[in-house]
């Protein structure tokens, strides 16, 4: 009896502290994130829908957006192949130095993006010791994006692969299935949600990437200029309305990808059960 008497006010107090904390945290989120982002959309529409449309459909804006989306798709696709392969090797294979390799996979997340760009320029730029000079080409942009998005697919596939029930594969083997069949019919379907959500994260990151691209792309309009660098140029040349309009499109792309990732997460959860 006395215990309940003590508990009830305590839990009520806890709940009101919780509500206060939640209110403050939501306020913080709104002030830091939502207010500025709504300013982008509002300014983008400041000049009216006509001006917005002109800004986002200018030849240079379209070319930049098309290249951004295409190179990001290529990045996501190559990550699906490379990331799945690396995850498989890190989980199922054994070789000396594996732990170090595994730890270094996260380096692109820890390394500042401007350093990443400089690092790639050192090996694949004009002074390349290998004689490979791809600086200021579309390939260079792809390389930079592959570098910064490297961990996404690997880190989302690895845990699923570790948890994957080996018995399923053994059962398939005992039923006479070959390796290719087992991979395609047993392993791949189990990994698919993780691979896709990793690829979607990589795509989202690639669409917005700036730091690693700015040095290596050369920023050539209609060729190597990506949308984020285009927006940066608009800001520098004091065209905030156009910058906001193009940013609104980028924002919409980010939101769509976020929604897709949440959908994939739910699909993965259902797959688990």
């Amino acid at each position, binding site marked *: 009896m006395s215990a309940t008497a003590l508990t009830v006010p305590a839990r009520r107090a806890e709940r009101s502290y919780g509500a206060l904390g939640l209110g403050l*945290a939501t306020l913080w989120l709104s002030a830091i994130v939502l207010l500025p982002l709504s300013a982008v959309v509002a300014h983008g529409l400041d000049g009216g829908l006509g001006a917005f449309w002109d800004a986002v459909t200018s030849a240079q804006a379209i070319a930049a957006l098309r290249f951004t989306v295409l190179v990001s798709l290529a990045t996501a696709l190559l990550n699906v192949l490379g990331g799945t392969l690396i995850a498989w090797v890190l989980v199922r294979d054994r070789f000396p130095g594996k732990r170090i390799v595994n730890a270094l996979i996260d380096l692109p997340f820890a390394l500042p993006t401007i350093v990443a760009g400089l*690092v790639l320029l050192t090996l694949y730029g004009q002074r390349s010791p290998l004689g490979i000079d791809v600086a200021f080409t579309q390939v260079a942009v792809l390389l930079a994006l592959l570098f910064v998005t*490297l961990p996404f697919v690997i880190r989302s596939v690895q845990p699923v692969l570790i948890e994957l029930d080996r018995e399923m594969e053994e059962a398939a083997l005992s039923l006479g299935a070959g390796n290719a069949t*087992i991979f395609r019919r047993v*392993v791949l379907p189990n990994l698919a949600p993780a691979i896709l959500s990793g690829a979607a994260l990589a795509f989202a990151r690639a669409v917005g990437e700036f730091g690693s691209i700015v040095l290596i792309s050369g920023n050539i309009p209609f060729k190597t200029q990506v949308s984020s660098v285009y927006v*940066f140029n608009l800001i520098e040349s004091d065209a905030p309305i156009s910058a906001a309009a193009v940013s609104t499109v980028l924002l919409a792309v980010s939101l769509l990808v976020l929604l897709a990732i*949440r959908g994939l997460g739910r699909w993965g959860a259902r797959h688990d059960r």
Partner: protein
Amino acid sequence: MTVSRRWRIGLRTLALLYLGALLFVPVGLIFYRTFEHGIGAVWASITTPAAIHAFQLTLEVTAIAVPLNTIFGVVMALALARGSWRGKGLVNALIDLPFAVSPIVIGLSLVLVYGIHGWLGPSLTKAGIQVIFSLPGIVLATIFVSLPFVVREVTPVLREVGDEQEQAAATLGAGAWTTFRRVTLPSIRWGIAYGVVLSVARCIGEFGAVSVVSGKIAGETDTLTLLVEKRFSNFDLAGAYAASALLALIALATLLAMTSMNRRREEEGA
């Protein structure tokens, strides 16, 4: 799936070649290029007044942004994992926005609110507060980009440990604060620490958003990453390498911290 030895070695070689060409060799080369003319030149280049100021500014910004994001992160994680309230799904989705939005858009968004022609800019200028092209703008940009880390590390840990111990503490008469400090906090401390390490790395390394709001005033609003770009653009390649090597060392230290924390977490089984 039992892959034959030949296949296994083939796949391993392919994976390591990919990693080598994309990650290991380039990063190794930057250290080689930095130190090829001796450590003295490197030391001179990272101890110029501009470099020291950039380093101090970077640390200052990180020291403001990370504690604020940690408090926000823990409170938000508690609300997401323990509470049930209207709009939870929406807030949960919005928290990831800083990861998905381009840093340039983030920088622009701050200019549009706090810049001279922004929503709050004119009144702030009247009050004598300058946000854009000064420290507050850099801090706001840094907080924005590193906002989700602690929330995203702590929420799953809270879900996993459950709330039975917290309820037991409450039943035994512990107040909300005591329960949090004595029961909840110890169980999520590795999650918090991991989130803090990721936030620190991101705060030190942020470039795009900061480059829009800083104005890049030498010796005033130049952070370390901005210094790298500036030196590179001014054809001071050795200087850019030296500052990059310093940042790369910080990144490697971050990785080391992450790895050892993961090991501790696994050992404690939480």
